[in-house]
């Protein structure tokens, strides 16, 4: 009887561990996402998400992608200068976040591209996006719809 109980407890513990590991983390002391904001977009159009990643650990982590129910596709993109006054945009691939550093996703630079948003993103609305890191796994962030950067430090 005791043995069965022990096995049950061990199974429950293992199950909890697995479920917890798969849940997106909303806060992580070593890797913080701050000042997240997203541009307005009508349903079906595209938007861009910006934020600052703070890596307070002594190890490099890598942003490998993002996912959200708010858009048909979610990609990491980068705006780039082609020449004197021409600009373009391209997929950015994986991005290394160096230890003890900040990495800023900002207008005119790196951004998370939300392609084909599934509802109107009106100024003041809030959306959820999950960022996928190689080491830290999933981090869920909330972003406010705004037409300009949110500068106050909004910790996720």
């Amino acid at each position, binding site marked *: 009887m005791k043995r069965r109980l022990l096995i049950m407890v061990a199974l429950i513990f293992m199950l909890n561990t697995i479920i917890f590991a798969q849940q997106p983390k909303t806060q992580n002391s070593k890797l913080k996402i701050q000042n997240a904001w997203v541009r*307005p977009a009508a349903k079906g159009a595209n938007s*861009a998400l910006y934020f600052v990643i703070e890596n307070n650990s002594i190890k490099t982590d890598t942003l490998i992608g993002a996912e959200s129910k708010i858009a048909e*596709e979610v*990609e990491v993109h980068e705006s780039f200068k082609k020449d004197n006054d*021409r600009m373009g945009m*391209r997929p950015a691939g994986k991005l290394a976040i160096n230890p003890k550093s900040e990495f800023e996703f900002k*207008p005119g630079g790196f*951004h998370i591209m939300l392609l084909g948003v599934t509802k109107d993103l009106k*100024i003041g609305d809030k959306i959820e996006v999950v960022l996928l890191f190689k080491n830290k796994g999933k981090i869920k962030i909330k972003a406010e719809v705004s037409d300009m950067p949110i500068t106050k430090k909004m910790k996720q």
Partner: protein
Amino acid sequence: MKRLSIPFILLLIYGCREKLPVVDDFKNSNYKLINPNNQEVIFPDFVKGKLVVMNYIFTNCPDICPLSTNNMRLIQEQLKKEKIDNVQFVSLSFDPEFDSPEVLRKFAGIRNLDLSNWTFLTGDKSTTDSVIKKVGVLAVPNDSTIFKNGRKIYYYIHTDRIQLIDPEGRIRKNYKGSTINVNEIIADIKSLQ
């Protein structure tokens, strides 16, 4: 004294004109374009007599074009604050195959833009191409994304531009749309009034 002051005044007038030389001139060029209400407008005829602040966009652009559009909004707000009128804002799409009047209407609507003196324009591709060629804007399709349902959208490499056009339809100055100094264009607008 009077003899001396006349050349001085002429020099001053010439100097002021030179501050914003004519970059290009629409002259007798007119283009049939479509506004978000599906109405045909003749550009630049419909804005003649007004100073025009114009940018060139495509709505699938999530970063640079919204930046430029937001800067247009900031210029518009500053002009309102300073009670400067007779300025018309125009945003022309160089991706008219995607940017229908309805798409442009939604693009402006979701941003709560004040459309009392701001018109978004689209048209047939050959016409919008002619306009951007005339004003020196380049827009070339580059990367693309294919959605799960097969829908494909293109991203353009494009000139990032806001342009100041005088009431006679002459282009007076080009600015970088995404990083324009609002105070600079406000000062330029005042100098042309």
